[in-house]
């Protein structure tokens, strides 16, 4: 049997292919994704900038949804960076130590993926609603893609849950539900009485997203799991 030291070196071409193959493929996929997204949504963003400059108006619903989507994408990037780079993850207090990073990085990576998909869904919905971005196959396929990614990441997260995480999830959902009941319900009562504008469907999506984030912070804070991180 040959030891690792005695094994013949692969051919230069094979080594080059291995060295360059993955980055080239990744770059190709990323480039195609960016080009497609720009082709589909680029003018939506242009329209957004134009309206923000005073040429037309942007609904409050869209601004809130865009802000929430951008926040989710930002959070997903921070969590992903911590999950991929142990040094940064530990420094940012996402993980206690290297062992903790090894134990939890899968869960955090799936959280980052889900968070990104949710944020992307919010951004697309925000652009569709006010910008009259046509609800054609590109938009629907994008929404379907991110919905599938979100569902997959949720499934992976729940698979990794143990009783502590299930407990945190229950507390988060409880806060989100009662928050939606009080804020959304209260607003709807006022709207029914003609004392406030009616909440748009996009507002409900933004409200539920914000309340989920707030519920998550409360659930972790109640358990004292944030005190070490602040």
């Amino acid at each position, binding site marked *: 049997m040959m030891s690792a030291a005695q094994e013949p070196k692969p051919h230069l071409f094979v080594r080059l292919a291995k060295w360059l193959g993955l980055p080239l493929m990744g770059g190709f996929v990323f480039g195609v994704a960016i080009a497609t997204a720009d082709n589909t949504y680029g003018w939506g963003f242009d329209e957004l900038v134009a309206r923000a400059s005073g040429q037309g108006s942007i609904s409050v619903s869209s601004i809130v949804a865009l802000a929430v989507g951008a926040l989710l994408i930002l959070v997903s990037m921070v969590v992903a960076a911590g999950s991929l780079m142990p040094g940064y993850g530990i420094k940012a207090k996402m993980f206690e130590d290297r062992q903790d990073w090894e*134990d939890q990085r899968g869960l955090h990576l799936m959280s980052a993926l889900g968070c990104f998909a949710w944020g992307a869904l919010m951004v697309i919905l925000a652009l569709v609603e006010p910008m009259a971005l046509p609800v054609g196959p590109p938009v629907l396929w994008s929404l379907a893609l991110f919905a599938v990614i979100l569902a997959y990441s949720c499934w992976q997260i729940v698979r990794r849950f143990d*009783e502590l995480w299930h407990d945190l999830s229950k507390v988060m959902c409880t806060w989100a539900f009662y928050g939606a009941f009080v804020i959304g319900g209260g607003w709807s009562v006022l709207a029914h009485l003609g004392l406030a504008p009616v909440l748009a469907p996009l507002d409900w999506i933004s409200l539920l997203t914000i309340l989920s984030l707030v519920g998550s912070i409360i659930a972790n804070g109640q*358990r004292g799991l944030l005190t070490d991180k602040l």
Partner: protein
Amino acid sequence: MLNRLKEHREKHGWSQGELARRLGVSRQTINAVETDKYDPSLPLALRMAKLFGVNVPDLFIDNWEPSE
């Protein structure tokens, strides 16, 4: 709820990760219980007691007393 989980774990020479593996939970759960941030479910408390060969009240300290 105060508990003696860390004391029993260290007596057995197990790390938090090792105890978590034996109990089938995450290391975060063990850490949260030891630092009094989370009270485990009854099944988990029973499994912990069984693993250390003690009774649940020896592991978890509750100062509640029934009123007259």
